[in-house]
């Protein structure tokens, strides 16, 4: 941080260079956590969504149950069950799993990933189911097998229809990540809570953190607009 900014900040009672660094570390944790859970969640959701559209109930049923469970309960409860529940398992402290689940980061990552994967599965499933019949028939007429149809026709077409709903899910996930602070992770909200309890200044601490979230959301909205423009290029008027 440049000296003149640090100097200016040090005249401020609450937003000193030290607290700004706490917010920054919190932002890094939030982005880290949300980014990883979204990427893993999306990777898991695509095959699950395909399985969910299969006619055989023994294949689609378990996926339906999974999305039903994770969409039917609050993320906070899922986080509590995973974070505190895992520690209650007899003897887990002696296994190598404990190296992973001792720190709050991985239980939170697991909860967030499972949650966003459930929502994303349903978003992609909806997009797959609404693929126009004509597209599939045309693909069949060209002699494409199931795998090729999925790869060339159904999934790209579903991506175009699903991207708007998915951008909402991404933004919800960013905001839902605020609950990570209840399991001692110092994310953006955790930093704000620490600073609030140090200075007893709720407005300053929380308005600042709200602005941080808004800045992150703005970046996401911008990125998704670019992506939508790219994916939906064919829908724009020729001269537009």
């Amino acid at each position, binding site marked *: 941080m440049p000296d003149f900014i640090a100097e200016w900040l040090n005249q401020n009672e609450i937003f000193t260079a030290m607290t700004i660094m706490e917010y920054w570390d919190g932002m890094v944790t939030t982005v880290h956590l949300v980014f990883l859970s979204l990427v893993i969640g999306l990777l898991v959701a695509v095959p699950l969504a395909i399985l969910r559209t299969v006619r055989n109930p023994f294949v689609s049923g378990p996926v339906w149950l999974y999305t039903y469970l994770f969409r039917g309960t609050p993320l906070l409860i899922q986080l509590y069950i995973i974070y*505190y529940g895992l*520690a*209650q398992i007899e003897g887990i*402290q002696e296994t190598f799993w*404990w190296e992973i689940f*001792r720190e*709050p980061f991985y239980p939170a990552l697991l909860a967030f990933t499972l949650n966003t994967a459930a929502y994303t599965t349903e978003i992609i499933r909806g997009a797959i189911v609404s693929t126009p019949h004509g597209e599939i028939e045309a693909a069949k007429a060209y002699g494409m097998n199931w795998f090729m149809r999925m790869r060339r026709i159904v999934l790209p077409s579903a991506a175009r229809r699903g991207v708007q709903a998915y951008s909402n899910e991404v933004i919800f996930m960013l905001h839902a990540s605020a609950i990570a602070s*209840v399991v*001692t992770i*110092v994310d953006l909200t*955790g930093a704000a*809570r*620490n600073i*609030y*309890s*140090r*200075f*007893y200044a*709720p407005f300053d601490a929380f308005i600042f953190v709200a602005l941080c979230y808004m800045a992150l959301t703005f970046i996401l909205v911008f990125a998704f607009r670019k992506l939508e423009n790219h994916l939906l290029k064919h829908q724009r008027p020729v001269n537009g």
Partner: protein
Amino acid sequence: MKKMIFAASCALALIAGGAQAQERDLRIAFDVPYEPFEYKDENGELTGFEVELAEAMCEEMNANCEFVIQAWDGMIPGLLARKFDLIMSSMSITPERAERVLFSEPYYNTPGGWFGPESFNTDVTDMSAMEGKTVGVQRGTTMDTYVTENMGGVVTIKRYTTADDMVLDLEGQRLDVVFVDYPVGEQTVLSKEGFKEVGEPVKLGEGVGVAMRQRDTELAEEVNAALRTLKEDGTYDTIMQKYFAYDIKM
């Protein structure tokens, strides 16, 4: 006739005086459960050391008191927003808080205590031995400030909103040791199998006071006077002995 007028005016004065004393409505906020200071007994009734002290204080002040339950996070904002008039929820007097609220004279002080599993044998005052250990504290407490200032770079500090969550993580071996208000640790950690006190209690801060809005200076004087009376006439000691085996009087 003169006698009658005198009697009537006396009666009036009495009624007026009585009415004035009855008039004062006070709402007092507690964060429950914080045993043994404020918690609900098996019948769901609010009780505890501070609750009983508040009852005695209200009687002494001739005030009509209503007890409000408020989570710790929203304590000071709730007071400033006039949701209640007094906080008697083990709020330690600190300079930062004193900028936002007006404190009465302290009415008790408990030390911070170190608690950990039976297997914990490190000297908590030895910084090189404590290096890399994970310490749990409640966010924004004087214990938090103490650990942050004295052991900040040495140990990993985890901050919790409630003591329950912290004790769960101590049991789950996510924490090596907790530093918590002594009576709370006694009630929560020591009541469990396999845990012990692992260091000397540390005297912290200026004690606990009743918190009020800055402008309520008259109320503060009345509170101070009432607390002083209770401390002198033995009421305080009677209540204290009900809940504590040691002295917390200030």
